[in-house]
């Protein structure tokens, strides 16, 4: 519990900044919707005619003129990318930062098992992701109400659940990698999140690359697919859960055997 509280205290500023930035961006996106919705018919036709570009971002499958379609692409990218970067940064730095700054020696000289340290840090990461998403959902709902649109409860529930799972998967995978590092690597975390994002774009472009949807957590957060199918793709999500569990198990396995130098 002390490790959990300590991690939350250590990460509170970063959490505040990322939550504020993502919420602000999503709020702005929603607020500008009424102004541009009148031009959406033309925009949708334009996107439909942009071939691979629209395909890459799933914009060929949805009606950009409808609020849910607009939200899933515009706001989805903000929360998708922003959330993934945040999750990757807190995941990759959770264990490695202690070794880089030699605070692991301080921590591990106390009667706290390594399993407790990993659990405390994982729960803190999960809590930070929950806090970020709750704040973003609150800002989203209030913004939607403010512009006079109906809140698409089921669609939002599916989208936000998918984003949460994606962020947690990204954090778990980078956390697992963090157990192997002895220096902090924000760069590696951001690169992993970016690779996940681009793998999904490649998978959107050609059916032959569908396998990539199983690898990247962005596979099951594809707003266009969720809206069209009115469901999250269970197979992609299952693969994501396997990666999440694998990242977590690997972090326990490695960190408990690791020499802290």
């Amino acid at each position: 519990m002390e490790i959990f509280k300590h991690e939350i205290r250590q990460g509170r500023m970063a959490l505040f900044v990322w939550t504020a930035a993502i919420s602000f961006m999503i709020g702005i996106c929603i607020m500008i919707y009424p102004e541009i919705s009148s031009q959406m018919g033309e925009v949708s036709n334009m996107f439909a005619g942009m071939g691979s570009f629209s395909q890459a971002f799933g914009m060929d499958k949805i009606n950009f003129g409808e609020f849910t379609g607009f939200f899933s692409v515009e706001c989805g990218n903000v929360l998708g990318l922003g959330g993934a970067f945040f999750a990757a940064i807190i995941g990759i730095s959770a264990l490695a930062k202690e070794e880089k700054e030699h605070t692991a020696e301080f921590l591990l000289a106390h009667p706290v098992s390594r399993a407790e340290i990993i659990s405390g840090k994982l729960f803190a990461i999960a809590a930070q992701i929950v806090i970020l998403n709750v704040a973003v959902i609150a800002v989203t709902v209030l913004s939607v109400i403010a512009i006079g649109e109906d809140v698409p409860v089921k669609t939002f529930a599916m989208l936000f659940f998918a984003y949460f799972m994606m962020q947690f998967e990204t954090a778990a995978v980078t956390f697992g990698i963090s157990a192997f590092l002895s220096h902090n690597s924000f760069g590696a975390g951001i690169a992993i999140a970016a690779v996940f994002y681009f793998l999904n774009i490649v998978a959107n472009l050609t059916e032959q690359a569908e396998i990539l949807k199983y690898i990247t957590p962005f596979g099951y957060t594809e707003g266009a697919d969720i809206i069209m199918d009115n469901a999250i793709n269970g197979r992609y999500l299952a693969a994501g859960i396997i990666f999440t569990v694998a990242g977590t198990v690997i972090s326990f396995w490695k960190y408990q055997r690791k020499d802290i130098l």
Partner: protein
Amino acid sequence: MKAITTDHLAKYYGKSRGIVDVNLSVDKGDFFGFIGPNGAGKSTTIRILLGLIKATDGTAEILGQDVQKYKTSILKKTGYLPSEASLYSNMRVKDVIRLSANLRKTDCRAEAQKLCDRLGLDTSKKVSELSLGNRKKTCIVCAMQHKPELYIFDEPTSGLDPLIQHEFYSILKERNKEGATVFLSSHVLSEIQRYCKHAAVIREGKLILSDSVDKLGNTGAKRVTLRGVCSIHGLKHTRDVKITQDTVSFLYSGEPVLLLKALSTLPVTDVTISEPDLEEVFMHYYTKEDGCGNL
């Protein structure tokens, strides 16, 4: 009961040597110094004792418990001061001290306050604003506030000014009198001579001797200083020969009668024969070219 025992303890980092076949024995209630040059294996040994790294071979026990199997239980009874004194830079000193106490699930506020007062530590400052000495003081408070049975300190006085060093050793002596065991590594041999009852010397990963500090200093060798000569050719059992103009100084470990015979043939104007200080004794063990224990 032994406070620390290691049995053929070895650690290799890949192919690099950490420590080799270290057999260490520290009695409960002892004030034990662990001496060796940089890279000799002092910190490696300490890190194995604390469970920070795993031994490649051999076993280590603290207070009768295996360091790997009973790590958490051992750490409850141990206070550790790392040589680097790295702390969370964005925290205040009082928060670091409280975090340490909370991690031990112990209310140490009264003892922490006493230690801060004695060491002159301002707890309202941020760690990032602290000098090495003040970071070290913070670590000392964290390591001592729960009054452990065993203190393991790695280079404790580096960065501390002489007054605080004196106060720090006063506190350690008080704890030692109360029954606690102190195990500290140091480069400062005068500290070891002044405060420790026993000491061990480690060089190139191997423990080369372990004995009482009195015995370690009492090796039978004498520091001989001769005036009026500039060489001592023909005299055996000499080491650490220093020649300056008309003065020759050396450590002599042979028969006294042979020394006197040799001196009678030399144009000596003045002779001083004294006990070597501990520093001189240990320098012998530190240097690679000399044999071990041949003083």
